[in-house]
């Protein structure tokens, strides 16, 4: 047994209690990040690495206490007691400085059953470690000294995220059992409801197509179920189906995302589709799948699952989608698109005009020509509209009725939406995150009548090794359309700047700012009546999360 006094033990306890308050708060923060990443340890650790979210504050304070404690060791009880009190106060202050993720932050922590279970497991792990170390300290000389305790705490504090992920992993079998039960319940619900399931898949446009199709079917066919927002995973759809799908729904529109091979197949097992829409088969996230062929296989799991007498609607402008239509023929196959050069089109949109109120267009369908208008803007949105039109008509809706419903559609704010701010027109596309969306927005910018055309953007991110090239390309296109450019941030600056120069842009009209707020200020200065400004990919979240660890 090492020599220790009750006083030492009391001091060590005081320090540990203070640290525990801090650890508790910090654990909640990491848990919040974990919850946002859907409890996927690999995504959590990716976030951790990217944000450098390892603890600095608690560790820093612990090091100070350690150093002070080591220096004060053996200098008397009064000094060490004072140090213990100071340590406690310091940890208390740190704990109070930690934002409570349950009440602050953009996405708040919700203490669901699962979250509580994880927390409980996590704290249990920490308590076991504490108890074990406390017992071991009985045998170590100076085991309860303040400096020794502080040293131990450094390890514990850094261990928090590890403990949390271990808890997630430990509870995984329980979670899987629960999910399995939910899956069975949900697929039984789908079967019993007798709803006609329509799946939607594709590299982009899934959510907007689902929402539009859901609304149109609700108006022109009958009660339709569709999960709101971008829910496209197995878990998300399971939850929505269990809570909201009823026997009275005639149709169910389900968005299916190909996170990996088999994810769509699993969704088709949950809700066997009788019809489907493929908007595009792009080559994004190559790292996840391995090869373009693998991507194709994964995304065509929907086409595979649709029965022979079902309906398949594919985007003829996308080679992958067109290939899928040819490889998986159904009784009713509909190919839609703008470009008839690529092959036969069952549904073709042409004569498109964009105005501040939206778009007008003509559709050729089954030998007839229809005129229509809508509040939506841009070719990507109109392409999705063709998919909805094709599917609704194939299901028996009156094309005139479908077009009537299209007239009421408006873009979601900041997905190529238009806003008039006094004498200036703003084209808001802040939520767009892909190059073809950016191009479509530039097209609209070009088409709208304007005395000057302005662009404010930080460029595109998450494009892997194509990022430089794409930003440069988009800059070149912008150069031919825009009169003034405000570029935000440093990530894509080089690419964009070179692209502008190559495009022949007068660099005197280009302004480079470091952050969004400055950019918006500059915009207000540079705008004059009659101007049209495109606000592109201005993801506020990018800049706002400055919380410290």
């Amino acid at each position, binding site marked *: 047994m090492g020599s220790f006094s009750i006083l030492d033990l009391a001091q060590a306890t005081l320090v540990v209690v203070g640290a525990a308050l801090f650890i508790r708060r910090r654990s909640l923060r990491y848990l919040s990040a974990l919850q946002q990443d859907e409890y996927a340890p690999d995504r959590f650790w990716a976030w951790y690495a990217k944000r450098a979210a390892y603890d600095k504050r608690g560790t820093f304070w612990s090091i100070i206490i350690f150093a002070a404690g080591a220096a004060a060791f053996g200098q008397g009880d009064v000094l060490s007691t004072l140090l213990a009190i100071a340590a406690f106060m310091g940890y208390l202050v740190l704990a109070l400085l930690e934002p409570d993720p349950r009440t602050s932050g953009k996405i708040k922590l919700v203490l669901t059953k699962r979250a509580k279970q994880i927390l409980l497991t996590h704290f249990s792990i920490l308590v076991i470690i504490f108890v074990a170390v406390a017992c071991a300290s009985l045998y170590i000389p100076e085991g309860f000294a303040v400096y020794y305790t502080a040293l131990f705490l450094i390890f514990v504090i850094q261990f928090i995220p590890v403990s949390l992920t271990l808890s997630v992993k430990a509870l995984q079998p329980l979670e899987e059992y629960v999910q399995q039960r939910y899956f069975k319940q949900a697929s039984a619900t789908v079967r019993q409801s007798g709803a006609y399931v329509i799946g939607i898949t594709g590299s982009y446009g899934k959510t907007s197509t689902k929402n539009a199709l859901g*609304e149109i079917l609700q*108006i022109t066919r009958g009660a339709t179920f569709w999960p709101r927002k971008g829910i496209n995973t197995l878990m998300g759809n399971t939850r929505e189906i269990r809570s909201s799908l009823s026997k009275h729904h005639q149709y169910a529109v389900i968005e299916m995302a190909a996170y990996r091979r088999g994810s769509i197949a699993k969704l088709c097992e949950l809700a066997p589709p009788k019809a489907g829409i493929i908007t595009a088969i792009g080559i994004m996230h190559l790292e996840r799948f391995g090869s373009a062929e693998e991507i194709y296989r994964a995304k065509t799991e929907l086409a595979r699952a649709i029965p022979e007498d079902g309906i398949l609607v594919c985007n003829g402008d996308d080679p992958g989608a067109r290939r899928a239509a040819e490889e998986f023929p159904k009784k009713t196959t509909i190919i839609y698109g703008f470009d008839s050069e690529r092959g036969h089109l069952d549904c073709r949109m042409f004569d498109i005009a964009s105005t501040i109120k939206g778009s007008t267009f003509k559709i050729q369908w089954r030998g007839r020509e229809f005129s229509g208008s809508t509040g939506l803007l841009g070719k990507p949105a109109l392409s999705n509209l063709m998919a909805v039109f094709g599917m609704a008509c194939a299901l028996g*809706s009156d094309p005139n009725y479908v077009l*009537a*419903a299209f*007239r009421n559609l408006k873009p979601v704010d900041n997905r190529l939406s238009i806003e008039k701010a006094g004498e200036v027109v703003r084209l808001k596309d802040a939520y767009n995150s892909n190059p073809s969306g950016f191009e479509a927005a530039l097209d609209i910018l070009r088409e709208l009548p304007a005395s000057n055309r302005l662009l404010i953007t930080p460029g595109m991110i998450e494009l892997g090794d194509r990022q430089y090239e794409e930003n440069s390309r988009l800059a070149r296109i912008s150069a031919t359309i825009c009169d003034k450019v405000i570029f935000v941030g440093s990530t894509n600056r080089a690419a964009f700047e070179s692209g502008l120069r190559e495009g022949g842009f007068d660099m005197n009209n280009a302004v480079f700012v470091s952050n969004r707020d400055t950019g918006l200020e500059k915009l207000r200065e540079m705008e004059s009546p009659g101007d049209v400004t495109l606000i592109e990919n201005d993801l506020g979240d990018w800049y706002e999360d400055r919380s410290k660890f």
Partner: protein
Amino acid sequence: MAAGKKRDIAVLYGGRSVEHEISVITALQLMKALDPVKYNVIPVYIAPSGRWYTGNSLFEKNCYRNWASCQHTLTAVSLQPWPGIGGLKVEGGSLLKRFSTLLTGRFDTIPVDVFLLAFHGEYGEDGCIQGLLEMAEFPYTSCDVTSSAIAMNKYLCKSILRDHGIKVLPSKVARKFDAIHNLKSVTDSILQTPGLERFPLFIKPNHLGSSIGIAKAEDIESLHAALAKVFLYDTEAIVEPCLESMFEINVSVISSDPTRASVVEIPVATSGALSYEDKYMRGGGKKKGARSQGMASLVREIDPAALDSTIKEQVTSSALKAFEVLGCCGVVRFDFMHDNTDGSIYFNELNPQPGSLSFYLWVKSNPRFLYTEELDVLIESALKRRSQLASRERELGFMALK
């Protein structure tokens, strides 16, 4: 001085309607105006899921926007559809409580004396909740089942009032499932209705109150689009002619003793008639910061001096008559339209639970009601009505069943 016990007033609001948000705004506002000396205010919120909750967090606006986290701090409750319970049943609760309920068969209740309703739209304003409250024999402050149901069906309401000498515009009801079947025949039959042969036409949902889904149609295509818009929210659309030059004029009526009408108001809109955006999302004259005041902040002229007094009288007397004919209770708001071309005044809609309970009209009326006073009147009249209803003989025993 605590003379007598405080009454337990359950403010019931929310509900599964598209106008859920408006109901929350009205309720939060009125809970601030209820006299804490006379009443113990219990918020009872019907969440979008349809479940009922109560709890102190409901007094804060943020609770509704961060529902997922707020929900855990509340108590789930329900109303049993039979008399004698004296309040709301507490659902769930701790394990111990549930076990004790299992053993004894008795559950926790939250005592309620009067239900103060602040709903807008389906289920809350159309007679459904009123039916539940009647079965549980609780006093409540809104119109009863019949008058609520009639008020919420614009076409039926107009037909009844027309029969009693109140002018209404011609109208036709179009049904959603007829349109799905054959859109063209639906539009044809609309355009063949006397009074609706020419554009522009006005299309509204037949069952809602708050101007969601209203649209003006200038031609066949916009008529189709207007129908499509309405049929997203309702199974019936009501089509009326569009008065080119008109203004809206509203008046509130309250079941005090005697029945009284308030001063009139003329809501001012940016376009021909008020849309949801106009009514609830425009800034008003006197609010501070970004406080949601609902109907109270709409730009309006209350008791305009320049308005011809014969118009005011006509509107007021029509409203009082309609109130009586339909058997309304509580406080309601009648919306009329004045056709500027020939001075005719047409009844447009009846709101059985008007936004902000029209307090902004009563505070300018003579004699005036402060909002707090108006709520006192509603609660008293609810209690009076319930005791009148209790004077009915109920049981006949079994005579035919031998």
